[in-house]
């Protein structure tokens, strides 16, 4: 696996940013885009543009086919059983809102429990909070252990007779913990509880297999997968998509419309109201092809090696404290430095062209638990190298010098 070659496929690394080579360590936030994806958007808009599924003219037919091709690619990428189980959304956030809203509407009532974890991103907490407000549903939190991990035992402890759904991250965007989803789903299903998985951080980095995981819902964010912004995927088992009420209403999702009643369309149309993100969906096919070309297990290996290397050098660096030491970990290096606030770290690193993120990373519950107002996070993508991590280390030392540590 030739990272230099792969890196060259990303135009952003070919130019200097602010007179520096860009050391991009913010992929958990959003990944950079390979040229093939950007080119596809360009070509589609300049040569082939049409809206999807509504007109019978040539361009519309072609666009509709391209759009549906991406659905098939996504299906294959995550090994879903049926292409109708792939719903395109605005993002992972919308995907989770869709499930919380429709599942909540149909199945949740006062006193029912939703089990989430302390690792959850706000996008996998706020939508459930709405049901607390509107229906009196209770939200229970599986707690992280001292390693920033969640064990299957903790899940077991928190499941009660009232647990109606489990909403859980696959890979924590702060501690990097990879949770044992398959075991959790097994456990949950043995009690008749469906499971929604927030797969934002896992989808670009580890192999996914919906039929093996057997989860009920899986939310994906395309812009973290080397794809365009404004696009996400909800995977849901067909039985749920057939069973749950529709989410947004509008053009394209109807079956028939009368003044006194409305019938809804078949899958997957039922959940794709209005003009969709046509160009983005079509371009996302190139992201999938890009991932497939390299091979997700190669990506996983590469990022694992980098992660180990990064942990090694940061552990050696005095006053740097790594956050989380989970059993299984993905490419996220969150840390603090005693005496320097994460924002100051990020600003000083940025001056060297090293882009990381500082803050609570939309995980305030977790930061409260860890007793941290904020943390610094370096996160990995397929284009990162050991040199990037060396530069990170170098710039951290610069921070320490400025702050006289």
């Amino acid at each position: 696996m030739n990272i230099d070659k792969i890196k060259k496929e990303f135009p952003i690394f070919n130019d200097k940013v602010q007179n520096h080579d860009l050391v991009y360590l913010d992929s958990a936030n959003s990944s950079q885009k390979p040229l093939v994806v950007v080119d596809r958007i360009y070509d589609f808009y300049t040569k082939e543009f049409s809206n999807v599924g509504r007109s019978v003219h040539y361009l519309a037919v072609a666009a509709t086919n391209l759009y549906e091709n991406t659905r098939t690619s996504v299906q294959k990428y995550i090994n879903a059983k049926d292409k109708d189980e792939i719903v395109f959304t605005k993002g992972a956030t919308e995907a989770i809102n869709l499930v919380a809203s429709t599942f909540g509407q149909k199945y949740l009532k006062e006193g029912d429990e939703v089990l989430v974890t302390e690792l959850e991103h706000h996008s996998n907490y706020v939508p459930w909070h709405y049901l607390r407000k509107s229906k009196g549903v209770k939200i229970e939190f599986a707690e992280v252990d001292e390693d920033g991990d969640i064990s299957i035992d903790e899940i077991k402890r928190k499941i009660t007779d009232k647990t109606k759904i489990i909403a859980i991250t696959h890979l924590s965007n702060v501690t990097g913990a990879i949770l044992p989803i398959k075991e959790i789903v097994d456990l949950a299903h043995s009690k008749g509880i469906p499971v929604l998985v927030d797969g934002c951080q896992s989808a670009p980095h580890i192999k996914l297999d919906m039929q093996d995981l057997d989860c009920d819902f899986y939310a994906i964010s395309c812009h973290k997968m080397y794809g365009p912004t404004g696009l996400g995927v909800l995977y849901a088992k067909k039985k749920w998509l057939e069973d749950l009420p529709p989410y947004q209403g509008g053009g394209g999702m109807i079956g028939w419309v009368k003044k006194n009643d409305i019938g809804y369309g078949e899958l997957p149309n039922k959940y794709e109201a209005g003009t969709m993100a046509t160009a983005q969906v079509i371009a996302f096919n190139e992201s999938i092809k890009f991932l497939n070309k390299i091979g997700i297990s190669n990506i996983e290996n590469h990022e694992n090696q980098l992660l180990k290397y990064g942990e090694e050098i940061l552990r050696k660096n005095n006053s740097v404290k790594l956050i989380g030491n989970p059993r299984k970990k993905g490419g996220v290096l969150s840390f603090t430095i005693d005496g320097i606030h994460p924002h100051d770290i990020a600003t000083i690193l940025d001056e060297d062209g090293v882009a990381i993120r500082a803050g609570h990373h939309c995980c305030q519950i977790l930061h409260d638990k860890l007793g941290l107002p904020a943390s610094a996070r370096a996160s990995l993508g397929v284009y990162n190298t050991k040199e990037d991590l060396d530069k990170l280390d170098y710039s951290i030392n610069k921070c320490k010098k400025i702050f006289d540590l």
Partner: protein
Amino acid sequence: MNLKELYQEIILDHGKNPRNLGKAENFNKDAKGHNPLCGDKVHVYLKLDENKKIEEVSFEGQGCAISMASASIMTDLIRGKEENEVKEIVEDFLNMIKEAPELKSKNLKDDEKTKLMCLSGVKQYPMRVKCATLSWHTLTTAIDKTQDEIDKENSYNGY
């Protein structure tokens, strides 16, 4: 693409003057089909005799030349055939429209095949395939309907 292949004389004729149009008198099975994206509708009526032979068949509908012609030709063609034969013909037709170069069914006579092949021009117009197949899918729905479903429907009128 080729408009002449799509709008052959026989299609235009059946489109303009569909055979078997109207509600059947004594039907015992029926089904409605609908394409929500374009608004095409069809209602297929069947009268099966005790041997599951199609004694009478007709349809009501609104749609383009392709969909009307397809329904018209279909209804002409299945009258007198047995349920199982018809199901086999439907499958053969749908295969042909989707990808197969020709019709293979032993339940179709050569002149029937020729007639049906007039609809094959639609292959080159993916957006129009649904027009050609709607009545065929609806026919299958009607045939597969159980007495239970029929009773239930009589008390509801969806669209």
